[in-house]
């Protein structure tokens, strides 16, 4: 199998199966989460204001007062990483073409040089977050295999994409194939690891906001 064959495999068979597992896994997990159900809360809600859940979905995106000072690394590096990741996934021209072919709709893309800079920032931020996780005793104690796995499979597509674009380590065709394969690994693992927060983060925020609202707790 030469490099172009590997790329074709990554773009066809491997991609198809990765997407199948990804879609299947996400559907399964969502059914599982929603299917759990909750006991009916018989208590009278403390607060009558509705929309606590919806509001919390957004307010939790900002650090609570004083937290930015107490833990700047997590907040700043976390933001830089997530923004970089989202921009490169959804606003890099070749990626937009991928979504266009899959969803039938496309959108404008950003200049490659800008995306490139954000990718570098995201990779550095991920490195900083890993170092922080290893150095901070609380974070280290809370971290398990799943956390490091999630970090690794997120870093790989960023790193291979960057290296493919800049022709580093391997020649472009092989690096592009490895990049696509690393994305497929991410797709396969996403529904079954902590990376599922991609889908569950706003669901859980809504739930927390709603339940705290009922109990009259500011959230």
């Amino acid at each position, binding site marked *: 199998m030469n490099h172009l064959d590997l*790329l074709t495999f990554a773009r066809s068979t491997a*991609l*198809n199966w990765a997407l199948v597992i990804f879609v299947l896994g996400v559907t399964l997990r969502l*059914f599982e989460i929603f299917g759990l159900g909750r006991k009916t809360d018989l208590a009278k809600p403390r607060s009558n204001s509705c929309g606590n859940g919806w509001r919390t979905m957004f307010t939790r995106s900002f650090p609570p007062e004083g937290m930015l000072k107490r833990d700047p690394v997590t907040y700043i590096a976390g933001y830089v990483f997530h923004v970089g990741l989202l921009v490169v996934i959804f606003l890099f021209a070749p990626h937009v073409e991928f979504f266009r072919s899959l969803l039938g709709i496309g959108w404008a893309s950003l200049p490659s040089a800008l995306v490139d800079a954000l990718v570098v920032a995201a990779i550095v931020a991920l490195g900083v977050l890993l170092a922080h996780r290893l150095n901070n005793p609380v974070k280290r104690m809370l971290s398990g295999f799943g956390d490091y796995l999630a970090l690794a499979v997120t870093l790989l597509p960023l790193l291979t994409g960057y290296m493919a674009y800049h022709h580093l380590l391997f020649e472009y*065709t092989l690096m592009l194939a490895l990049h696509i394969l690393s994305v497929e690994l991410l797709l396969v693992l996403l529904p079954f690891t902590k990376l599922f927060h991609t889908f569950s983060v706003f669901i859980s925020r809504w739930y927390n906001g709603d339940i705290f609202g009922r109990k009259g707790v500011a959230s």
Partner: protein
Amino acid sequence: MKQANPQDNQLGTVGEGLEQRGVTRREFLQFCTAITAMLALPPSMAEVMAAAISKAKRQSVIWLSFQECTGCTESITRSHSPTLENLIFDLISLDYHHTLQAASAEAAELSRTQSMKENEGKYLLIVDGSIPMGNPGYSTIAGMSNYGMLVETAKGAAAIVAVGTCATYGGIPKADPNPTGAVSVGDIIKDKPIINVPGCPPIPVVMTGVLAHFLTFGNIPELDNLGRPKSFYGETIHDRCYRRPFYDQGKFAQTFDDEAARKGWCLFKLGCKGPVTYNACATTKWNDGTSFPIQSGHGCIGCSEPNFWDAGPLYQALSMPASATTSMLGGAVAVGAAAGAVITWHNRSTKSAAKAAHAKVTVQELIREEK
């Protein structure tokens, strides 16, 4: 093209031949300078090359055509005629080429076997076309199978130049489902140096450049891991493309020949395979440096890469899936939902079983026994 006459091999040097044809030394040096530049050699090598080629005996060449479309031959015969490339080509001793030679039938085959005998171990073998392994009858020449002729002729060759994607990697005949069991030259011949010059067809000047290298140095140029001369196949078309800056700026043509395409914007979205295609099209160009496919508004189809025909749709961007996925995704949602329902049912029944099995604890049971 001259008729097969093995005696020609003994006739004079390339330099004498050039003189006879009225080619000046200045013209010849210009040609050698161009070739050295293309081969990525230092400029000082132009003189060395000129001297070496001038003194060289006319190189005996046997050209075998197997499962091919004659496009490679068409390409090389149109190599900027009548420039020096053609003359150089003419001045090698092309002892056998069944499309170009005047001799036919037994006389043609005789010229091949005679040349093989007289230039044993010295002749250059050029092959275009793939070799069918499914059934020898799929392609024969003078009643001889392609496989048989290749093995027989390769035995006494100094080196082999596989010309075109069919000879180098199997090409279109090898495309799925490969009805003839087509294979490349390199799949069969393992004990001879092989230079792969892929392309469908290859750039004429790349073919002549490789021959010039062989005539000058008597050995084969530096090759990459796919057996291609690095000087011509060292970089992707994308990296040397004049539309490349627009790719970096995110400026793309949306349809063929739209305003953006005419302005020179990148053809990536129209399916250009330039980023994964190693060839010299963007630098040497075609038809005496006039243009190349991307310049004329059509994306690269990657014709010089192995298995390019099966590497996904020609008109879809490289980042797009190479085969359909949507139908499978609908099934995935259905299976995911069904599995999710089963898990939900399982979770709920576990919960109600736990509830049912729950025994109430009385106050008495909680009182510690005094010791």
